[in-house]
């Protein structure tokens, strides 16, 4: 079967007005639960991605959240201190936990 077709000459069309200048990526007001450790989450977890990444995981165990925070520190080099990592893990488990430790 032949999938690549030869085409006739092209015409360069002007850019669609919405993307002609700077594009604006909208801000989504993701809901972040207030709770103990909220400040640390704000300071440590929102530089590289929105809070949507966090809530999207659903309610999870403490071990899950601890592992996630570690993954971000090890693989993505998130500059988080060990005490802050602990506080953030507690916060995530408290606010977005499923009641299970493992």
């Amino acid at each position, binding site marked *: 079967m032949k*999938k690549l*077709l030869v085409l006739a000459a092209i015409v*360069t069309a002007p850019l*669609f007005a919405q993307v002609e200048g700077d594009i604006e990526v909208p801000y989504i007001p993701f809901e972040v639960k207030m709770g103990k450790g909220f400040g640390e989450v704000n300071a440590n977890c929102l*530089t590289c991605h*929105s809070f949507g990444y966090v809530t999207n995981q659903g309610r999870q165990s403490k071990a899950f959240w601890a592992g996630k925070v570690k993954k971000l520190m090890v693989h993505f080099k998130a500059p988080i201190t060990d005490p802050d990592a602990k506080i953030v893990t507690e916060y995530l488990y408290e606010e977005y936990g499923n009641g299970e430790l493992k």
Partner: protein
Amino acid sequence: MKRRDFFKTSIAGAAAAMATSLEAGVTGQPIDNRKISTIAFPEKRPMITYSDRPPLLETPRCVFANTITPNDAFFVRWHMPDIPTHIDPKNYKIKIDGLVKKELNISLDFLKDPANFEQVEVTAVLQCGGNSRSAFKPTAGGIQWGHGAMGCAKWKGVRLSDLLDQAGLKKDAEWIGFNGSEKAAYYETPNFVRELHLDELDDHVILAYEMNGEDLPYLNGYPLRLVIPGSYSDSWVKMLSNITVTNKYKKLFFMDIAYRVPDNECECETPEKKAKKTKPITKMNVKSLIGYPENGTVLQTKSHVVVRGVAFDDGHGIRDVKISIDNGKTWKSAELDDGKAGRYAYRGFKLAIKPMKFGKMTIMAKAINKIGQEQPLAKDIKWNHGGYKFNGIDVVTVDVV
């Protein structure tokens, strides 16, 4: 109240809680019917929205009743929060350097000129390796996509091989590195770079500037992206800035750690005992999706319903799509479209059914490709830590009244 309304939640992620009722370790159906946002991103209609930085948008199921996914409903997936917000097509250049005889710096106009390069088109499915990840239990790492981290478009551009020919590969050239323009927010976070071995690149690989007859949408990689028909989208680098030819493979996070599955027969592992050896996800497996009807659609008994959807694989082509409306006891072949869009495109299927009994009715779809591979039942798909390559038989439950 429509079932759809019932599922409305304030954020897409909250729906993930629904899936936790599944038995641990048993793969189910991905989370479906997530809420469509009211916020439209540039060039997009409002979609299922997971994140704004980086933008992550999912296509709702109903779009897959058609074989071409419209640009404004096509899914969006970036890795880094910092994507360029301005590209001037007049000044944009793609650079080809490294082990080449002649370094190239090519403008869009030069690239689009048939006097310089043959302009080619291919209709191909673009699917994230983590599409349908929310089917896996326990929760696999990454965004908990439903079914819609995929789409099919007609891509137009030039062959990568023609470009490399013009640059002239040096003798020891072996790896081709592709750099996208997205940037991490923190300097030590690995950037998104891909390397492909020369052997993986054939004439079907193109650098595309057009999608379904329009400029690539900004969020889908304007002005130029890699198109690798049959492969998962992690290697279709967006917003290409440069292509570097080397003789040595560099260690790259998104190649060596992310987007990999266990290197064993079942490509599976358990959370307690993760596989030591892994391999890249590369080629797509056979899959189908019902676009109509959807979960919760209300249908009158004895009415004339046409089930519609799409099926695809990595380019072997689809031989058959079977539909069951009795929980998999009996299967009937759907009618396939003419297949003229080519072996990398969605193959459309349709089947007329008449609901006879009141109550819940499940509709299942199973695709079989030309080399006889078929979709397994979701429950038979074994877990992998990244939640990649889900291709379970699709199941939609409707209400017959």
